[in-house]
């Protein structure tokens, strides 16, 4: 079975400050890992993924995430937050034998001006 934990329901950060949204996972074997963002009244929008190779993955809108196998984590980061980054962020993991991701509960990111 595969699972994802996003330990924070909400993350608050001031505009211009770095942000981190945490994600840990559990899966058998090597994982595929994804981050999606959901803006109000919109579907999930793909941000980035880790498949193999470099542990630091860069994605859309200046976001990046670091795969840490020993800590089974895939935290989402951005060096300088924007108010427009305020949204719901979902981490997802997929076993390499399946096309079906398991999503975390989501973390609400609020960036204050």
């Amino acid at each position, binding site marked *: 079975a595969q699972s994802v934990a996003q330990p924070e329901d909400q993350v608050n950060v001031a505009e211009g400050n770095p942000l981190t949204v945490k994600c840990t996972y559990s899966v058998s074997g090597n994982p595929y890992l994804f981050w999606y963002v959901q803006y109000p*009244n919109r*579907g999930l929008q793909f941000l980035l*993924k880790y498949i193999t190779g470099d542990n630091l993955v860069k994605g859309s809108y200046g976001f990046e995430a670091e795969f840490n196998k020993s800590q089974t984590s895939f935290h989402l980061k951005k060096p300088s937050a924007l108010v427009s980054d305020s949204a719901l962020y979902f981490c997802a993991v997929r076993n390499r034998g*399946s*096309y*079906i*991701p398991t999503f975390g509960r*989501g973390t609400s990111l609020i960036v204050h001006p």
Partner: protein
Amino acid sequence: EPEVTQTPSHQVTQMGQEVILRCVPISNHLYFYWYRQILGQKVEFLVSFYNNEISEKSEIFDDQFSVERPDGSNFTLKIRSTKLEDSAMYFCASSEAGTSGRREQFFGPGTRLTVL
């Protein structure tokens, strides 16, 4: 940029009624999915569809649910007799073929289903 579209954006129905949720996946994608998100909860997988048949389904996807690709563009989810607990946001998604295990899924904006 191509995107997945879904109609309607909001559907209100009475318990026991049938509903059909519609999706138009991205045109060159060959894998299609339905997910649901009950308010305040995580996104849950329902079913995946490839080559005109279901490839995987979850425990949620029972006999009340069915999917269909009636033509070359639409992908539908039918709930035969809706229950109150079917109230949720339903997301359609699609992904490319090939080494699809690596391919991210592109999601539509969702249909909010309210069962009264």
